[in-house]
C-alpha cells in the first residue's frame, strides 16, 4: 500500500554478513518444515492469498525475509494470515505454507529466543 501511495519506497539495505549470520532459526524451521527449501519464489501463494486482498501481507516476501534472516517485525507481519490454506493448495512446488507460517510464528514468538537476544 505504501508503494501505491507514492509510487516508490525506500528499503533498508538487506545485505547479510555471512560471518556473523546466525542461522539457527532458519535451521529450526527447515527441520520443522522440510519443504521450506523447495520454494522457487514464484509468488503463487501471494497471488491467491485472501489476506493479501485486504492488506500488504505477502507470503513470498515473508519467506524471502526469513531465509535471509531478516526477522525484524516479522512476527507481527505474519499475523494477518487466516490459515485458510489456499496458498498451500496452489503451491506448484508443494511447500507446506500453512505449516511454514505457523512454525515461523512459533519460532519467532518463542520466549527463549527473546531472552537470548
Amino acid at each position: 500500500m505504501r508503494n501505491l501511495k507514492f509510487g516508490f519506497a525506500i528499503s533498508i539495505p538487506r545485505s547479510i554478513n555471512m560471518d556473523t549470520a546466525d542461522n539457527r532459526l532458519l535451521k529450526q524451521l527447515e527441520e520443522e518444515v522440510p519443504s521450506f527449501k523447495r520454494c522457487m519464489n514464484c509468488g503463487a501463494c501471494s497471488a491467491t492469498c485472501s489476506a493479501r486482498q485486504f492488506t500488504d501481507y505477502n507470503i513470498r516476501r515473508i519467506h524471502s525475509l526469513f531465509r535471509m534472516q531478516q526477522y525484524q517485525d516479522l512476527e507481527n507481519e505474519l499475523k494477518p494470515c487466516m490459515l485458510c490454506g489456499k496458498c498451500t493448495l496452489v503451491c506448484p512446488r508443494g511447500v507446506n505454507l500453512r505449516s511454514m507460517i505457523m512454525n515461523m510464528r512459533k519460532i519467532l514468538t518463542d520466549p527463549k529466543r527473546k531472552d537470548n537476544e
Partner: protein
Amino acid sequence: MSKYFSPFVIPFCIGVVLLFAFCIWKYIRWYKGFDRLQRAIIRKNIFSWKFLPAIWEIVMESLLHRRIFKRNLLLGYMHASIAFGWFLLIVVGFFEAEFGIQGSKPFWVAIFYRFFQHEHNTFPSAAVFTQVMDGLLLFVLSGITIAFVKMIYSRIVGMKKATKHVIFDHFARVSLWCIFPFRLLSESVTAAMYHNGGFLTQTIGDILPFANEYVEYTYWLLYSLSLGVFFTAMPFSRYMHIFTEVFLIYFRRLGVKENEQKSGYTMYELSACSRCGICIDACPLNKQLDIKGVQSVYFLRDIRYKMLKDEIADNCLMCSRCASDCPVQLDLMAIRRQMRDKKELDTKNNYRYLDTVRAFNAMDRVVYFAGCMSHLTPGIPDAMEKIFETVGQKYWYMDKEASICCGRPLMQQGFHTQASELRRKNTQLIVQSHARLLITSCPICYQSFTKEYKLPIKVMHHTEYIDMLIKSGKLKVNKDASLKVTYHDPCELGRGCGIYDEPRDVLNSVAVLMKTPEEREHSLCCGFNLGNTVIELEQQEKIRNAALENLQTGNPDLICTACPMCKKAFTRATEAKVMDVAELVVKKIGE
C-alpha cells in the same frame, strides 16, 4: 464374623478399598473441573426424561458392547463375555450368598462363597444357582481365551493392528486374565473336597490330582491376590474405562459437550478410552503411510499420562474417521483441538483490516458463501450462480470480492481467539444482510456455520439446496441413464455433518450412482484436509491415491464430490473427470 474370615481375603479387601477410594477421589476432582456451562446443563437435565435413554445406552454399551458387536461378532463376544459375564457373576453370586447364608455377613462372602459355604442345597433352588454360576464362569473364561488369542493374532477378531500398550497396562491385563482361571481352580479344588461344585467345577475338581486344604487355600489366595492387584491397578490403567464409560454416557446423554479448553469432562473422556485400538486400523495415516503412535488411542494415552508431544497432537488429518469407528464415541476431534491450543500465539486483533468490509442489504435474497477453497475451483461458484439464475432466486455472493475465511482452519489448529474474531465478522455481515438463508459450497465452512456459529438463519450446503430444489420441482433436470458416477463423501460433510443422502439423491436424479467399497461413514479422506500440518505433499498424495482408487472401482464415467478441496485434490491426480455435484447438475438442467 470370624466364621467368615480367613486371611486370604485381605488382598481382595485392600484392592476393593483402594479401587473405590481412587475412583471416588478422581471422579469428584474431575467433576469439579467441569465449567459453569457444563454444570448448568447437568443441573437442568438431571431429573429429566434423558435419564432413561442414558440407562439404556449404558446397558447396551458398557455391558453388552453393541457397537463392537456391529463391527465384529467375535470381538463383540469377547468384550460382552468379559464385561457382562463378570457383571452377572457378581450379581448372581450376591444373591446366591444372600439366600445361602442367612444373617449378617461380610461383603467378601459373596465373592468367595464356595469357600465359606460347603453345604449345597441350603435353599430350594441352590443347585440351579450352582449350575448358573458355573455357566457364567465358563462364559467369562471363553472371553478371556479369545482375548489371549487376540493378543497373539489380532486378525482373528478383524483387527489388523492391535494397540501397543505401556508396561503398566500389560501388568493390569495379566492380573485381569489371572482372576478367572484361579477362580475356576479354587472352586474346583473346593468342589473336589466338599462336592459343592457345578457341572464345570465339579468335573475339573474330580480330575485334579491334588485336593487338600493347602492346595485349596493357595488357589483361593491366588484368586484373591489377582483380584486385589487388578483392583489396585485399575484406576491407573486403561481398565479405568469400565466405570468411567458409565459416567461418560450419562453426562453425554444429559447434553454435556466438549469445550474449546480442556475441562473435567475431557478427563472423563480420556479415562473412558479402553485403548481397544479400533481407531488404529481406521486411521489413513496408519493405512497409507504407516505412521505409528499418532492415532487417537496413543494420543489419548499420552495426554492421560502427561507425555504428549506437539508433533503427535499436530499429526492428524482431523478426518474423524477414527471417531466414527470409536466404540465409546469419544469426541476425539474436540480433544485434538484442545491439545493444539496455541496459547500466547493466539493473539487478539489480528484481523482489524476486515473492519472495512461492509454488509450488503440482501433482504429477500439468499446469501451465497463460496468459501476460500471454492475460489480455487471457480467452476463450483459459477455453477451455483447459474442454478440461482435458473430458478430465479436472487442471491448475494458474499465472498465474491472480499473472501473472509470462516475460521474453522484456524480453530482446527488451536487458534481459538483468532477464529472467534473471524466468526464475529462473518456473523455481523450475515446478520446485517437480513437474508433468511445461507448457502455454502464448502463443507468446512458448512460445518463451521452449523456448529460453531450461532447464526439466526438457516444454513444449507449447496447439495442440500439443490436437492431441495429438485424435490420441490423448482429445478428440472434430465436423468442421463448412461452416465455412471461415483460419489466421494467429504470428511467434513459426511462424518462431520451427517449429510450423506442429499448429494446421493441429487446424483441419482441426474445420473446413475454406483456404490464404492468404502462410503458414507467409512469414506476415505482425500488427504488434503486442513487438519494436518505435519505431513508433506508426497504423503498427502499417497492418501489421496488410495481414496481415488476406491472411487474408481467399477470404472465410473465421472467422479463426483461436494467439496472444492477434495475436487482440487483429485483433479490433479487423475485423467478421469472429477466434478462437483453442482457442476454436474448445471449440465443436466432440463426445460
